[in-house]
Structure formats: structure tokens, C-alpha cells
């Protein structure tokens, strides 16, 4: 039963990693740059949700607050592209990467300045409720996290498969010039991808903050999610989610069965192994692109 318990809580953690990894992959696919602030986006999304929901702040209804937070993060992502990232157009990718690292610092600082550095917990309607199956005790939060993540991944996957806009995003990421030639408004599409990354981050943030306390430095979690994205084979959406799940599950098991400290290293050890034995990632889609 211990195993089962560890597995479920690991999966729930892994879902959040997976969602952040999804954000990495989205941006990477669209712009070929890695957004190292994706973890901080998640943290910002969490704090906006907390600010809207918790009784000490605005105290809105949870089911109203989450969509608003998602909307705000979407708009922030869009504006970020228009106001900052687009001006880097034509610069080498590394410039964008460094920019996002700096952006991460700024977000952590601003959130800390507004809401303080104490851990916050999102007040959800299902907080503290538990589902008991035999000896197995499942928190409602954990179940919610898993369901929402699967749903969101499925929606994104279908969006890229079927929707015209999703196709255009894929096309623009595979060959920007050719996308121009067929009449895809590439710049607008890229802004929308940043908006989408913001939206995914908001969902991840709300989920994370509903099952555990969050503080500004939690944004650094993004590095772990980066490892997840690499494991999944940077460029594959389901791969990112599965990479996240692997890391999420390995962590509690390593913490439980191995001496202290190993659980911290485990995600990166896995990433190294994947890079050595399957350099393109577990779900490689990009044969000819390198991270």
C-alpha cells in the first residue's frame, strides 16, 4: 500500500512537472528558444490564483478565480511576446534564452515584493477532503491534479492535430519561412503560442498551489521540469507529460528507499541516462534538430 500511496502522490507531482514541461515544449516548438522562466510563469500563475481566491485577498469564488487567472496569464504571455520577445527577432536564440532567465529573476522578485516570501496555500473547495479506497487514502487535490492534467494534455494534443490554428503553429515552428509563404501570420502565431504557454502555466500553478504551499522560489522548479522535457524528447507534447510523470514518480520513491539527498539528484540522473542512451529523448520527434 505504501507503494500505491507513493505512486499516486508522485503522479500528482509529476503532472505539475509535466505541465511546466509542456510550456517548455510549446515555446521551443514555436520559437526554437527555451523559456527558462516557465517555472516562474507557473509560480506567478499560482500567486495570481491565490490572490483572486484566498479570503485574505480578494476572496472570489474558486471556480470564477481560476478562469480569470488563466485569462490574465494568457494576456501576460501575449504581451510579453509583443513587447519584449519580438524585439529580439533575428537575434541568436541564446539571447532569448538569457532574456528568459533574467525574466525568471524579475518574476520571483516582483511576486516576493507583492505577496511576500512566506509559503501560501490556495484555498480550494476540495481542500482536506479525502477518498478512502481500502487502506489507500487519496486527497481530492491529487485526483483533481491528475484529471485536469490529462484533460489539458489531451485538449492540447487534439488542438495541434485538428485545429487550423494548431496546424499553423506547428507549421510555423517547422519552417518559419515556408509559413510566411503560405500566408500564416507568423508573428501573431508566435504571440499566441506565448499566450498558450501562459495559460498552461496558470493551470499548472493553480494545481500546484492547491496541493501544497508555494512561495516565490518555487519558480526554480522549472529546472526540474526542464529535465522532464529533455527526457520526453523536447518537441513532443505527450513526451513532456510522460517525462514529468517519470520524474514525479521517481522522486518520492528515491526519497523513501534511498538515503537522504538522492531524491534531489534523481531527476537529473535520469536526464543524463536518457541523454546518453537515447539522446533524442524517449519520444523523439525532431530527428534533425538539436536542443
Amino acid at each position, binding site marked *: 500500500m505504501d507503494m500505491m500511496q507513493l505512486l499516486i502522490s508522485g503522479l500528482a507531482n509529476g503532472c505539475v512537472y509535466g505541465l511546466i514541461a509542456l510550456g517548455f515544449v510549446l515555446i521551443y516548438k514555436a520559437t526554437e528558444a527555451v523559456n527558462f522562466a516557465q517555472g516562474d510563469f507557473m509560480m506567478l500563475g499560482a500567486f495570481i490564483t491565490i490572490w483572486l481566491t484566498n479570503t485574505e485577498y480578494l476572496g472570489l469564488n474558486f471556480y470564477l478565480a481560476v478562469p480569470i487567472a488563466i485569462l490574465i496569464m494568457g494576456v501576460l504571455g501575449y504581451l510579453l511576446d509583443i513587447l519584449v520577445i519580438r524585439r529580439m527577432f533575428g537575434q541568436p536564440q541564446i539571447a532569448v534564452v538569457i532574456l528568459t532567465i533574467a525574466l525568471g529573476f524579475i518574476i520571483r522578485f516582483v511576486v516576493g515584493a507583492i505577496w511576500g516570501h512566506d509559503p501560501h496555500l490556495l484555498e480550494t473547495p476540495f481542500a482536506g477532503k479525502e477518498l478512502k479506497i481500502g487502506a489507500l487514502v487519496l486527497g481530492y487535490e491529487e485526483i483533481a491534479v491528475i484529471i485536469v492534467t490529462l484533460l489539458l494534455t489531451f485538449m492540447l494534443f487534439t488542438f495541434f492535430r485538428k485545429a487550423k490554428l494548431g*496546424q499553423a503553429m506547428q507549421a510555423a515552428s*517547422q*519552417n518559419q519561412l515556408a509559413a510566411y509563404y*503560405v500566408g*500564416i*501570420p507568423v508573428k501573431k502565431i508566435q504571440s499566441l503560442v506565448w499566450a498558450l504557454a501562459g495559460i498552461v502555466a496558470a493551470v499548472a500553478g493553480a494545481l500546484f498551489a492547491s496541493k501544497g504551499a508555494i512561495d516565490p522560489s518555487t519558480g526554480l522548479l522549472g529546472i526540474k521540469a526542464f529535465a522532464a522535457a529533455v527526457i520526453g524528447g523536447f518537441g513532443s507534447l505527450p513526451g513532456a507529460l510522460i517525462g514529468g510523470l517519470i520524474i514525479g514518480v521517481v522522486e518520492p520513491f528515491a526519497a523513501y528507499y534511498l538515503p537522504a539527498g538522492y531524491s534531489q539528484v534523481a531527476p537529473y540522473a535520469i536526464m543524463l541516462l536518457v541523454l546518453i542512451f537515447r539522446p533524442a529523448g524517449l519520444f523523439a520527434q525532431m530527428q534533425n534538430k538539436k536542443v
Partner: protein
Amino acid sequence: MNKNPNNQMPVLRDAPVLRIENLESYYGPIMAIRGVSLEVREGQIVTILGANGAGKTTLLKTISGVMTPAKGIIELNGENISTLEADQIVKKHMVHVPEGREIFPLLSVEKNISIGAYVRKDREEIKRDEEMVYSYFPILKERAKQQAGTLSGGQQQMLAIARGLMAKPKIMLLDEPSLGLSPLLVEEIFTILKRLNVEQKVTMVLVEQNAKVALDVADYGYVMELGRIVMADDADKLENSKDIQAFYLGVRQDNERGQRRYKQRKTWR
């Protein structure tokens, strides 16, 4: 060419669909297009010949809006489009078919084709046009489910043309469709281009290094060197011109003494 014998005002159908005047375009600090003017009339195939680095591709990119001209006018059906973005220009039924392998490598062949209709909304007609496109390129129908990146060079070139057709173009800007293809494939593709020109009434601007095949299908030709137009005439006249034969068609010319002149002067320099 306006072949109006009485030197009257040209009648309306003779007005150029595409008119370019004094176009200048830069690659960073380098001036790649140095004041180009040209005209394309409806139903024509106009070819632009030139060696590597003559500025042909840059010219096409500037016309299709991927690059912004520094100076000059690009008029499509009498409307100045030189400031429009690429996607706006595709909506005006002028589409750029890029050279070589500018396709979407990870999408399937059929998705590559359907995305060519991105700016269109008329679903029924898009379906019909897909059938039309496959009838010109049956090999693409066979490969419909395959990833486009796995196609051969010739098939990728066909795919690029097919994708361009899906935008329902009145004018197609074709950038070196013969690039890197075997003579047999070049002939096949040019036969299809000529058919499209006649059957689908697509006006074409054809940029080529392969002067022979280009002049064979074209009605009118321009020769470009170092960012300028240096010669312009009907295609058959160009084909017979000594300079073109010497510099672009590789016809050997012996002088009075029966020796080859290796340092022949071009008449335009």
C-alpha cells in the same frame, strides 16, 4: 510587350497585373536589388534569368512581402502592395513557391497541401482544389500520409508547387523549380507548370538559372545581374540572342578565325 501598332493607349486587358518600379532591397547593409522595374501581364509566363547572387531570390522575396523594400513600387492589379505583410499578399492571390525544400518536414504530405489553403475559408472549394492538385501531381496522392521530409527532392519541389496552388493564386512566383533536379524531372515539372498556366490560368513569374528550360516555356524574359535588370525581351528573341547563348545557354561561338573568344564582352557592360 505591348504590341499595339498604332501607339494608342493600351486596352485594359493589356494592363500589367504585376508592375514593379525602381525596387530597391537590402540584405542588412548590402544592397541586393538595385532599382529593378518589370511588368507581368495576365496569363504570361515571365522568366527572370541570372546567375547565383544576381538577386533573383531576393527580388521574389521582396515581391511576396517576406522582405520589405527600401524603395520602389510593387503594384498588383493597380494596387500598391509594397508595404503589406506576406500573409496579406497571399490573400490577394499572389503566392510565392520557394526554391528547394521549404516544406513542413514533420507534417504529412496531405497536411502540407491543406495548409496551403490557410488564408481561404471556402471549404467545399478547397476540397475540390485538393483533388485538382492531386490530378496534376498523382505521386503526392500516393504519398499523402507520409511525412513530407521523407519525400525525394523532386517530390518536395512538387509539394511546394502543389501547396502554392492551394492558395488559389492568380500569380505564382516560382523560385528555381529546377534546382537540384535531374533533367527528366525538370522537364516533367516544367510541363506541369505550362499546363497550369494554360489550364488554370495562373500567371507565372519564373526565376531560373536554367535558361534553356525557362525560355522554352516563358513568353517574356528578363536577365538580372548584380541586382539590376540588364536585358529584357520576348523569350524567343532572348533565346536567339548571342549574349544569352554565350553566357546562359553555353552555345559555343567561334569568331572569324574559327577560334573561341574566351573574353567576350557582354553588350550590356
